């Protein structure tokens, strides 16, 4: 059977949304695990975090995965845009004069596109501030001669507005994951009355851990580690 594999119909497009979304979910776990090193006492955190960053940037396997990651972010956003534009067409030009449909579903479930667009903006800012600096600019070195990413991060989190932006972005991420996680399983058809309760709870648990984990780091660094660096 001939098929244009990636654009065939909405189920295929939604499969791609689900698969890229779940891949990004997996990445968030690894990203959080690495970043939790920032919660160590400042001096130890600096040595360990810089060592970890260097390790990642020189590993060929990580490099391959990172390209898959960039591709996933782009594909997830592009397919979301294609699907949204098509849905707009499907709804038709004439809307309801009096519309209370929102009463039956939570707001974040209906606004995944808006939350996703905010997240994309955050990802761009986030990558410019850390990833771009690490890869493409002259970086200060730490005592062991490694690029001192820790100091870049610590300085960034000494600014209250930046911490606030970060926490707000994590809240957006939380609501996106709250629906996205179990919705991905539903889309892939991996959903069964016997297990869907577990999938839902796993989604809630995952969302809580990821959101809380990423939120604690900047708050902790601002309030507790916020001292002049050596």
């Amino acid at each position, binding site marked *: 059977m001939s098929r244009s594999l990636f654009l065939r*119909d*909405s*189920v295929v497009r939604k499969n791609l949304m689900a698969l890229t979304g779940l891949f990004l979910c997996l990445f968030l776990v690894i990203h959080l695990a690495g970043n939790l090193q920032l919660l160590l006492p400042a001096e130890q955190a600096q040595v360990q975090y810089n060592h970890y960053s260097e390790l990642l940037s020189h590993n060929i396997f990580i490099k391959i995965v990172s390209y898959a990651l960039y591709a996933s972010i782009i594909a997830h956003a592009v397919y979301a845009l294609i*699907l949204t534009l098509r849905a707009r067409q*499907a709804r*038709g030009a004439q809307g309801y004069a*009096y519309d209370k*449909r929102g009463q039956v*579903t939570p707001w974040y479930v209906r606004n995944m596109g808006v939350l996703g667009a905010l997240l994309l903006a955050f990802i761009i800012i986030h990558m410019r501030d850390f990833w771009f600096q690490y890869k493409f600019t002259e970086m200060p070195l730490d005592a062991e001669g490694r690029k001192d990413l820790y100091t870049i991060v610590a300085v960034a989190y000494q600014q209250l507005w930046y911490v606030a932006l970060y926490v707000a972005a994590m809240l957006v991420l939380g609501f996106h994951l709250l629906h996205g996680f179990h919705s991905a399983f539903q889309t892939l*058809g991996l959903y069964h009355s016997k297990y869907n309760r577990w999938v839902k709870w796993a989604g809630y648990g995952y969302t809580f851990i990821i959101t809380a984990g990423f939120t604690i780091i900047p708050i902790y660094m601002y309030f507790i580690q916020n001292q002049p660096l050596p």
Partner: protein
Amino acid sequence: MKIQLKIWRQENAQAKGKMVDYNLPDVNPEMSFLEMLDVLNEKLIRSGDDPIEFDHDCREGICGQCGLFINGRVHGPMSATTTCQLHMRHFEDGDTIYVEPFRASAFPVVKDLRIDRSAFDRIIQAGGFISTRTGDAPEANAIPIGHQTAEDAFDAAACIGCGACVATCKNASAALFTGAKVSHLAMLPQGEPESPERAEKMVAQMEAEGFGHCTNTGACEVECPQEISIEHIARMNFEYNKAAVLEK
């Protein structure tokens, strides 16, 4: 009871429609919503106006013909209710009620509140059947089906094709309707052999009709008069993916 109505009037498919105000000063609370519209139509006919067209048939909640968007909700404010089973006692004296047709580009308005839902028929024609020869009904116990399976299949088969799922969906997706049909047959031994192929064909037709995608908001299962679960959408996706992976 006194009711003020704002009803969508549209001359024909090409015409531009608008909301028109009507007043009914003496509505019996025991009337069904459609009977209230009948009363209004009698009044309009007597005064030489064009009556309001709307779909209806059995008026017992089982045919799926009636379907109105009432006060911002599909089939009105009650859950698991068709428009014909909605009664005026669920409104207050003096209420203003908005009445609009179900909206989706795949459900074009024919006139006033009447829409063309033949897109659903074409989705069924694409694969919502089994290719066995018809003839005498086989002996009922010849094909054993477990009680729970029979119940689950029947839950999906209960879809009356009213289109509420599409009308309430923010993406105008027909996934619950198509999912219910695919799922119902996939669960039974008569339908199971053709299931992956059926899923592919029905999804392709759903696409061709211009329905949107499913984002699993779950609004459809809340508004469905038959309370059909979105699990059936997941089963459709599963059957579809199985076909994509395993079929030659």
